[in-house]
């Protein structure tokens, strides 16, 4: 009897263990993958495979620049020290590139710590973490790695290396939640009342639920990856990446206008983000091009994410429809993401289609991972990017190569247990972009604690330097995509053992978005 009661008590204890099952921690350090199949529309960054980068950044900037002239609010760099060789060019790499490069070089040689006596500048991150259906701790981890460098080496936010004056420390607060609407709602409230200077939705499937809380209160929001129409088109919200808006119209433009394909088959994900991305950023531009007579047809094929039973049949259908279309130069454009790309690639190969020699296949950068690239079936596929390829720095200018190598080096040396990935690099880029803009505000005497001033800064900054990619310009919004900053796009071909850059280089993707959204407005 006593034994039984003890056992029952034991059972209660165990029962309470489940209590915490969905709480977890904000610091979920569970190893996560290089990518995840549930996210849509990532044009965000670079592909995942990481060759060991050359140690970089330690060969320059031996001494601090001595001239105490603060950076202007438009990102003008202070005159560099005589012996500091700067590779960047603000006209090419975006406003603030010179200042950034000089700051990094100096920060490596003569680290300047943030002034802990000042109030921190806080970024509040709301992110999906710990759910097997979608977990992206690498986003917040990338932001933390950048934060550590900023606070330890660059003097925080608004620090001035020339006067050796530390600025406000950068803090990253994270509300991590599962794929659970109620948890997301709690995070939205927590973010709104946190007093943070900026709210960053990481990769999140619940942003439409959260935006009314933040925009109603006029809080500044800088999102990581737009995947819903609410992400594309909400006043007062800006995005670091184009998400679906870059990945899909960018590819459509490339496929039809640059490579002359006259028929496009689009397998896309049959889930909420997949549906919105397809209807707004694939079906609409393709319908527009069809109306313009630039293609003879297109067709979408919904794919059940994670369900292998429909892949082969969809592929058979796609190939049959292409054959029946009478098109002379058809193409396949993936609206599917990550692991689904790999499965489709396998299915296309099983069905006898070689992307190298048969019907061409175009995919977004989120389809790139080790498994895809190590498979022979990936050879010949064109992958789209709005950022630079980190594993091929030699393909770019000296400055970009230096910047990419420095970033890889910093992440590698951070001691993080989470595998380096596209999304981690994106988080890293995010922190530096925010630090640069808020730093410019402080230098210009603006109040970074004023939400409307911060929002205004994001809305009015001209093409500005962004780590890892071409300059970001959020000042010229497109009517139906006002949250999306101007973006450039290129489709690079995987040759089987390396990348072949798009011969056109980066092309303007925003103009086409403006064109089709005006020609075929959202109904």
């Amino acid at each position, binding site marked *: 009897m006593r034994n039984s009661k003890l056992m029952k*008590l034991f059972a209660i204890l165990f029962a309470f263990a489940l209590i915490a099952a969905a709480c*977890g921690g904000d610091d979920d350090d569970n190893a996560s993958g290089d990518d995840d199949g549930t996210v849509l529309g990532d044009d965000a960054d670079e592909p995942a495979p990481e060759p060991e980068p050359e140690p970089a950044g330690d060969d320059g900037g031996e001494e601090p620049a001595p001239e105490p002239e603060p950076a202007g609010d438009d990102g003008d760099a202070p005159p560099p020290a005589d012996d500091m060789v700067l590779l960047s060019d603000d006209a090419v790499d975006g406003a603030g590139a010179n200042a950034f490069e000089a700051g990094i070089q100096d920060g490596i040689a003569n680290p300047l710590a943030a002034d802990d006596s000042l109030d921190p500048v806080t970024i509040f991150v709301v992110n999906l973490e710990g759910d097997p259906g979608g977990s992206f701790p690498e986003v917040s981890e990338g932001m933390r790695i950048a934060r550590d460098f900023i606070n330890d080496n660059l003097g925080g936010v608004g620090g001035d290396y020339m006067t050796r004056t530390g600025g406000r420390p950068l803090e990253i607060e994270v509300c991590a939640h599962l794929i*659970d609407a*109620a948890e997301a709602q709690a995070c939205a409230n927590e973010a709104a009342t946190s007093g943070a200077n900026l709210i960053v939705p990481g990769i999140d499937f619940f942003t439409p639920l959260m935006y009314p809380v933040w925009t109603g209160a006029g809080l500044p929001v800088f999102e990581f990856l737009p995947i819903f129409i609410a992400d594309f088109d909400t006043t007062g919200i800006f995005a670091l990446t184009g998400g679906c808006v870059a990945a899909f119209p960018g590819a459509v433009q490339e496929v039809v206008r640059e490579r002359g394909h006259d028929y496009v088959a689009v397998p896309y994900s049959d889930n909420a983000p997949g549906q919105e991305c397809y209807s707004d950023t694939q079906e609409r531009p393709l319908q527009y091009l069809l109306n313009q007579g630039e293609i003879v047809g297109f067709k979408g094929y919904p794919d059940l994410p994670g369900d292998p*039973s429909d892949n*082969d049949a969809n592929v*058979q259908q796609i190939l049959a429809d292409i054959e029946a279309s009478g098109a002379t130069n058809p193409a396949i454009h993936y609206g599917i993401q990550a692991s689904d790309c790999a499965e489709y690639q*396998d299915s296309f190969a*099983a069905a006898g289609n070689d992307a190298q020699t048969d019907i061409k296949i175009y995919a977004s950068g989120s389809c790139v991972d080790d498994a895809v690239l190590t498979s022979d079936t990936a050879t010949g596929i064109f992958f789209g990017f709005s950022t630079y390829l980190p594993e091929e720095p030699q393909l770019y200018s000296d400055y970009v190569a230096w910047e990419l190598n420095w970033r890889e080096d910093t992440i590698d040396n951070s001691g993080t247990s989470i595998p380096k990935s596209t999304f981690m690099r994106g988080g890293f880029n995010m922190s530096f972009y925010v630090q640069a803009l808020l730093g410019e505000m402080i230098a210009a005497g603006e109040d970074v604690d004023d939400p409307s001033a911060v929002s205004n800064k994001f809305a009015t900054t001209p093409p500005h330097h962004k780590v890892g990619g071409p300059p970001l310009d959020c000042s010229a919004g497109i009517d139906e995509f006002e949250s999306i900053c101007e973006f450039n796009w290129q489709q690079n071909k995987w040759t089987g053992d390396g990348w072949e850059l798009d011969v056109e280089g980066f092309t303007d993707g925003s103009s086409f978005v403006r064109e089709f959204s005006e020609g075929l407005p959202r109904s």
Partner: protein
Amino acid sequence: MDLFLLAILSGLGAGGVFAMLGSGIVSAYKGSGVINFAHGAVAMYSAYTWSELTLRGDIKLPWFDPIPEFGFLKTLHLSNLPVRISVHDGGFQNVQGFWGTFFPIFFGLVMSVLLGAMLHFLVFRPLRNAPALAKVIGSVGAMLYLQSTAQLNFGTSLRTQDGFLPKGSWVNALGLGGTIGWDRVWVAGAAVIMGLVLTAIYRYTNFGLATRAADENEKGAALLGYSAQRLALMNWILSAVMAGTAGILFVGIATLNPVNYTLFVLPALGAALLGGLSSVALATAGGLALGMFQSGMVNVANQSWFPSDQIPPSGIQKVIPLAVVVLVLFLRGNKLPVRGSIGTKGQPRAPQSNHVVMGAMFAVGVGLFMANVFTTNWMVTFTTTLVLMLIMMSLTVLVGYLGQISLAQMSIAGVAAYAVVRFASNGEKINEFDAVAVGGLDLPDPIAATLAILAAVVIGTLLGLPALRIRGVQLAVVTITAVTVIEEFIFKNESVSGPGARTNNPVPRPSWFGWDVGIQSKTTFLTDRWQFTVFAIIAVAITGIGVANLRRGQTGRRFLAVRANERAAEASGIDVAKTKMLGFAISSGIAGAGGVLFAYKLTIIKFDNFGVFTGLALLAFVYLGGITTVYGAVIGGLLASGGIVNGFVGLHFAGVTRDYITAVGAIGLIVNAIITNGEGVALLQSDQGDHILSGLRRKREDEPDDPPSDVADTNERVGEPV
């Protein structure tokens, strides 16, 4: 026509996997009478083992380090339980030839054997005499455990690998003009061979004969000298090996992650049911047919005549085969084998509640106090708790009182949530950035809510129809299938749920009789208005009183009689069919009310708010709280994901990964199933309270004519918690 046949042929690979998994489910059922919801998870863990050996040369044992390294524990440097065994540095991918292929497969299958044995010894053997619900909970606990342990040991990243099967193509397959990958054909071939081998084992070996004997009559087999438990162990191992083989073979075709492989259990259950839970051969054929049929439906859904506006293409692929299974189950319900076991533990106690109104008033008082104390995110947590309590009360009625196992209550709640949006919407956008404007009847909110609850009652009652012919774990299978059917044909169907059906569905701001009960403040824009919280408290209190009184009344007693023994209930004049339907209707009404409240709370709903795992979690938490009492639902709501206790405890577990806690919690769920038999924390707690009180009373009174203590104890237990 050729293309349709080609599409069917393209489903060979998936069909082969469903066939192997289905056969494994039959095998486990023959051996132990358990339908194993963790079967897909076994396939997943075995496939990860193969993958880990191939990539890194490691074996990760199916447990986790029990001593988390955080806080002060880090400083103790305790020796931890070994998890990783390094077999070959750099992984077997670097080993050319036969051994590079053989070792990962061999160890993957060894892992299957280990998992089968663990399932038997640690979960289902202790539950051998437990009621069906406890076995369902045991298998759900095993599934959650394996899933979270896989995440801990292998990470959450998706793994795409080339498998070891030949990758060539079958050009002009069967003269249909298309090309099929040979690896798909190999998977299907393996399924057929394994099905034949398993069939031969059951038909021609002593072990097979003994298993069949025990399946039909465990007592009889025991009298003949067969150990039912030894037979069960062997069958669990066979079943796990089938699962492991399916998982390992499929890695080269489908991306591996902890969720998708676990969910393969759904079509596999369909295959097993097509095999009548007794025939491996039919289960194999059924699995192949399901996979090929699903694949063929892709072609049908792509035809120009297909009404894709009315029926989502994914719906026809997923639902039609499963609907056939449900139909088969319904028609053959009485013919499905019900295992006779040596003894069965009684149903969990369902004491009637005294002082219902007092209890409710106290609960409302506490609720109002909390509503006053909490703000911002804590208010959101509190309202989540209230909504979950309400939906869990539907399980108290249906599972706790009536004994009908339903895994679809969250879907029923979803029906009401989607319905209230349609009934209340007026075709205008609610937020400027909404993707859609939902057209609807623009009805006043109380009427819209009432109609939405009625819609839930109708769907829930329809869902109860199979319960007239089947019961126990088979009903659980039907209801888990219904989750997919409801999702595909109602939630994702634009002709039913409006243009937001397949994406974000905005909910109109509710106002009841001029009282704005919307959750979002118009001044702070936070989703923490006290008016909504009070509205939710009133809804939960009224429902709680109703459910408690239901148990006290004649209807409740009829429910319990049906739960205890349907034949005896019928003999005593109870109309069992009517009682069951009434139970499903009441329960669906409660779930519907919860769904309406959930929609009001979230302001935007999506179909995945009401998915399979959400429903399983709901049952798991109310089971922990106590499935037979309103108090248990209250505790379940507090404990559940997003609930208040959860939030508070989370503050103190910030350094531990969520998967670790889930794995520990899953063990807790199994232990609870074994020990409390579904009475959960609620009755356990009151038992302990009674024990202390009776001890104090004995000391104080100490009179010679006191009744024996355990008699007093028993008498007091009857009328406990509210």
